[in-house]
């Protein structure tokens, strides 16, 4: 009760607080790096250069950011409806399955310009369907969505292993992966990096989500439900159907990770391609304040950390791959779980006018 928990000025809320959180995270990272015996400034230098030092590294940063945008938006849109979708990982996996199945079925018959929209739609459909089941279970049967979406991640993982080992495996192959897609099933990519056209899809999703949330009556109803379900019910919104809608949109967005990974990079269905992007999406959405613009900025940061971290681990043997995960974890910790840590101090420093 000593420190006022008053609201901060808007600019501090949107810009200053996330920046302070990142700075705090890097401070702690610096201390850890120092303890290992590496010069923190050298490490920071390697990290930044690794992320944005060359056209190739920028390409990789943007490619990673694409995945983070999809999963960040997925978490954000559900969150606007008061739904905590922890199942981005599974939805991305199953979305990729849908995308891959569509391509495996049709890539020999259709040209690329027709194949791509069908594959993208399939990814959205499968991702949405995988999210729809937990949504239905919550809305009509009362199982909590956090629990069911987590469990569905495991189900998705097991299902994919089964399918790739037993059903989709390329004939004569020893590794559990499908046959390669024909060229019509590939998205054009920047030579020398993994960056592909999916990033345009990601940016389009940002614009569409902004339009949907703030400029349509369905987005309005979804946000009303998220802030105050009782008022939304009073306003005539069918909360069950709105829960289903919100989760389906969320699942479809997560499913697009499959487009970026399979159509853009691997060009076949592989195991474990969501690689934690679904979970990182929670941090991206939190850090981006659930706003599309914020999600893009946070996704860029996470993409840069992913790419720069890989370069750093490559360059500096004492900093292992695991250390890079620790760095990412600290950023998530400070901008997610400890998000409000500096708030009381800021509130004292920046008394709100008016």
């Amino acid at each position, binding site marked *: 009760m000593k420190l006022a928990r008053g609201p901060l000025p808007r600019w501090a809320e949107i810009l200053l607080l996330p920046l302070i959180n990142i700075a705090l995270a890097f401070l702690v990272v610096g201390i850890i790096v120092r303890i290992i015996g590496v010069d923190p400034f050298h490490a920071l230098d390697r990290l930044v250069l690794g992320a944005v030092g060359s056209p190739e590294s920028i390409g990789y940063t943007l490619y990673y950011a694409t995945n983070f945008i999809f999963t960040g938006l997925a978490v954000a849109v559900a969150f606007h409806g008061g739904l905590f979708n922890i199942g981005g990982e599974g939805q991305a996996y199953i979305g990729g399955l849908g995308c891959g199945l569509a391509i495996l079925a049709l890539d020999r018959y259709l040209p690329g310009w027709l194949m791509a929209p069908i594959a993208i739609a399939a990814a959205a459909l499968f991702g949405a369907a995988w999210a729809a089941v937990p949504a239905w279970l919550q809305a009509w049967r009362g199982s909590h969505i956090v629990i069911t979406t987590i469990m569905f991640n495991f189900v998705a993982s097991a299902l994919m292993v089964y399918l790739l080992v037993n059903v989709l495996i390329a004939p004569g192959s020893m590794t559990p992966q499908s046959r390669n897609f024909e060229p019509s099933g590939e998205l054009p990519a920047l030579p020398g990096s993994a960056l592909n056209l999916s990033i345009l899809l990601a940016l389009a999703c940002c614009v569409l989500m902004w339009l949907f949330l703030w400029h*349509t*009556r369905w987005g*309005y109803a979804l946000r009303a439900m998220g*802030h*105050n379900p009782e008022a*939304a019910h*009073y*306003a*005539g919104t069918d909360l069950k159907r709105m829960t289903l809608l919100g989760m389906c949109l969320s699942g479809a967005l997560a499913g697009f990770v499959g487009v970026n990974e399979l159509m853009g990079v691997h060009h076949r269905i592989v195991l474990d391609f969501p690689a934690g992007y679904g979970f990182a999406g929670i941090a991206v959405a939190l850090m981006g304040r659930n706003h599309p613009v914020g999600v893009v900025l946070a996704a860029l940061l996470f993409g840069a950390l992913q790419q720069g971290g890989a370069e750093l681990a490559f360059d500096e043997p004492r900093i292992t791959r695991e250390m890079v995960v620790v760095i990412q974890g600290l950023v998530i910790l400070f901008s997610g779980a400890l998000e409000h840590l500096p708030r009381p101090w800021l509130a004292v420093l920046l008394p709100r006018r008016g």
Partner: protein
Amino acid sequence: MTAPPAIELSSIAKSFGAVRAVRGVSLRIESGTIAGIIGENGAGKSTLMSILFGLYHADGGEIHIGGVPVRMESPHDAIAHGIGMVHQHFMLIDSFTVLENLVLGVEGGFLLSDGMARTRAEVERLSGEYGLSVNLDARVSDLSVGEQQRVEILKVLLRGARILILDEPSAVLTPQETDRLFLVLAALRERGVTVILITHKLREIMAATDRVFVMRQGELVAERRTAETDPHELAELMVGRKVRLQIDKTPTHAGSVMLRAEHLRLVDGRGVPLLDDVDLELRAGEIVAIAGVAGNGQTELLQVLAGMRAPTSGSLTICERTFDAHRPGDPAGRRAIGLAHVPEDRLRQGLVAPFQAAETSILGYQDEPRFNPRYFLDRPAIARHCRDLMERFDVRPRLPRLRSSQFSGGNQQKLVLAREMAQEPRVLLVGQPTRGVDIGAIEFIHRELVKARDRGCAVLVVSVELDEVLSLADRVLVMFGGKIVGEVEPAGTDERRLGLMMAGASE
């Protein structure tokens, strides 16, 4: 005049941002008296009391308790100085017994039984002294609201309070229970306890207090001996201008039946009937009020009528449409046939706090073509609509883009009322029309309701304010235990008789 005053506040000031909630208030309350503090919403009375109780820290000024200057850093300090506060919403654990609730926080020692025995002895002494009888071994959930309030008072006294602050204590009580509360307060006064009563009910100020302090816009504008003032003067002081406490209205010309409920029943998950065989008729051009103590089914009745909850059985005809347990309809469908609903708990159900005022101003009407020319919401049109509502219902500040939560309570209420009443509905359901709005606005809201009635709208008002029920309604129905237990003509009905019906006593 030898004893120092129980409380002396000098030049207390408190600002929230640019809002000066309390501006240099100084007052003295003599020991062993009952002081009333009245004022409109936002007049600063709750803020002032929160400062006294240590919930807020004053920007300036001094507090003396019993002549000694003190610093109130937290409620802990206030309790240590013998100040206790009974909140409007009780802070009791329903599944605990009364004794368990009383012991909570003062268990003392390792074994619970020691504290229990000590507390039991202490409570028995106190309850004998002050007439605060309660069954210590009853579960709180089995107690009536009046009894729960007595438990709250006991809790405060047990912690050694010599100064008792009561925040709107009668909001949930029947007139009889309120009288009983005032007897307890009088007994406390006899024993030298100082009582501060925060209320907006003038009648209670007149009935219970020795002195009354009137606050307006953060300032103490008047102090009167209760015996030397009258409700009209106090109302005028509160608002700063003359207020008519009576509503002018012509006799009703009730038309055709717009809403009819037959054998309406609603049973909750545990099989407890919330609505029990409710029959109800509401005609165009009349105001029917439902009186009753909060929690006797009025809330549920409104919810069923508004389509927010399906009845368990019975049928409902609204504007020639029939609904029943199998086809309960929904709130959107009700709006489509011309029913508007101002929910009782407007802040929880009627608006979405983080939404802009403009967004709140279309809540429930967001699907209408006038706000959706094609696929997208027409934001400029919505802002115009909101500004228009704000003009007509005097919502301040007139900023459609401001977040709903940043308006004062009274203005949030007015925004919701404006939204529903501006639809010119055929049937208007209003829960607690003047809860949380100030006297000036009450006058306005009542006038608007009468205007709607005169336009031919069928108006159903649910209210726990008897004054309001009696002055506003053309017919009054009384609810008790989920049933409608009687109908009275507002003219020539006195509050005592109504009070007995509300308490479930047969006529």
